[in-house]
């Protein structure tokens, strides 16, 4: 957002747009790929978090849980089938995340390139 500056927003103001219109029609479309990329990375971290949840939030079962923690609990309960099922699901989600990330990086690259072009 810093590198894009405020000139498009200023242009919108002079054209008579209200603050809300500027946000939805100018600012948000300009940052949407960057924003989605950030959400996705955040999501990836959240799904896979293990240590921080286990140590900091005291690992309360049914309350502060993440998939890796759940896998550990299942495994320790000798519920191997369930543990491997969740682990497979986690792997799949990782692959999907990776695919979306690659697409987003590509879109972000073209968006930044287009913004630089003018």
């Amino acid at each position, binding site marked *: 957002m810093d590198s894009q500056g405020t*000139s*498009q927003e*200023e*242009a*919108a*103001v*002079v*054209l*008579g*747009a*209200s603050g809300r*219109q500027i946000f939805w*029609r*100018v600012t948000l*479309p*300009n940052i949407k790929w960057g924003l989605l990329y950030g959400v996705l990375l955040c999501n990836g971290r959240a799904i896979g978090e293990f240590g921080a949840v286990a140590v900091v939030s005291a690992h309360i079962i049914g309350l502060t849980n993440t998939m890796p923690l759940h896998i550990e609990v299942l495994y320790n309960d000798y519920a191997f089938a369930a543990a491997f099922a969740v682990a497979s699901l986690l792997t799949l989600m990782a692959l999907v995340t990776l695919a979306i990330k690659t697409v987003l990086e590509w879109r972000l690259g073209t*968006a930044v*390139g*287009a*913004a630089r*072009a*003018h």
Partner: protein
Amino acid sequence: MRIAVEQLTKRFGATLVLDRVDLEIGEREFLGLLGPSGSGKTTLLRMLAGLEFADTGRVLFDGAEAQALPIAERQVGMVFQHYALFGHMSVFNNVAFGLKVRPRPSRPPRNEIAERVERLLHLVQLDGLGDRFPGQLSGGQRQRVALARALATEPKVLLLDEPFGALDAKVRVELRRWLRDLHDPTGLTTIFVTHDQEEALALADRVAIMAAGRIEQVGSPTEVYEGPQSPFVYDFLGRTNAFDCVVENGGARLGDKAFAVDGLPDGPAIAFVRPHDVVLRVPENTDLSEDATLPDAAAVRLVTVLGPKAWVELSYKGQVIAAEIGREPLEELRLKAGSRCTVQLRLPCFFAKR
């Protein structure tokens, strides 16, 4: 719309950007704000647009204070320096933006918007390019999209910030003429900012020359070019040769002639002469006209031929004199580096030395 600016002052931190600026702009006028970078011209333009507010002073649109008005009600269109087109929107949507964001009661129906946008694209000679995106256009085309976008809301004032700054020389000259043709029938009051004196003089009805937050001089291009009121204005409007001289009893000596000067105190002064008013003659020539002639011959340092003109640099008593002469005199004089010639000065302009 008539615009008046009264005693406008603006500070950014410790820097005084505008210093009690007074300016009046008439209905349908095409005014150029000319000045070096940092002279406050863009800040003044942004204040007229409503993007910046003055610390003190008034901005009057048709006699009414405009600074209290919301930007949308000022009826101002603006073309930004780097156009600030919406990169994620097509050309059509860029131009339509100002109409689409209007509140429902005053928003024209969809087909009317489309009609108006097509008309504007035709006006700026971009027919059929409505589906393109700004990233796919050339610099000149983007500039015209920005103009069409600014005109879509039917403003009464059009503000242009360095409108031709990012274009190459040939496109610049074409667009300049085209902009002038566009202005005349529309009834717009147009104000543009530029640091290019040639552009301002070629395009504007009147030029306001700014320096360090103040307006140095306002007048028609001919007035300011031929009657500059300060050394700054003279120097800024073109290339300059400066000669030291002395004013005594209302007359200044330059070369072998004395010139009557009005309103200059006795004492040291500066005489300015434009390079195209420097005349070169063969040293033995005794048939000298009434132009001021320097007592000794000058040595040629450099001759550069630029199309029909030649640029000659001479050294005269440790000073460099630049002369712009035609190809014919150049060939007659057979000037080349190292040759000598007599220098005559026409139309000098005198200022007291500060």
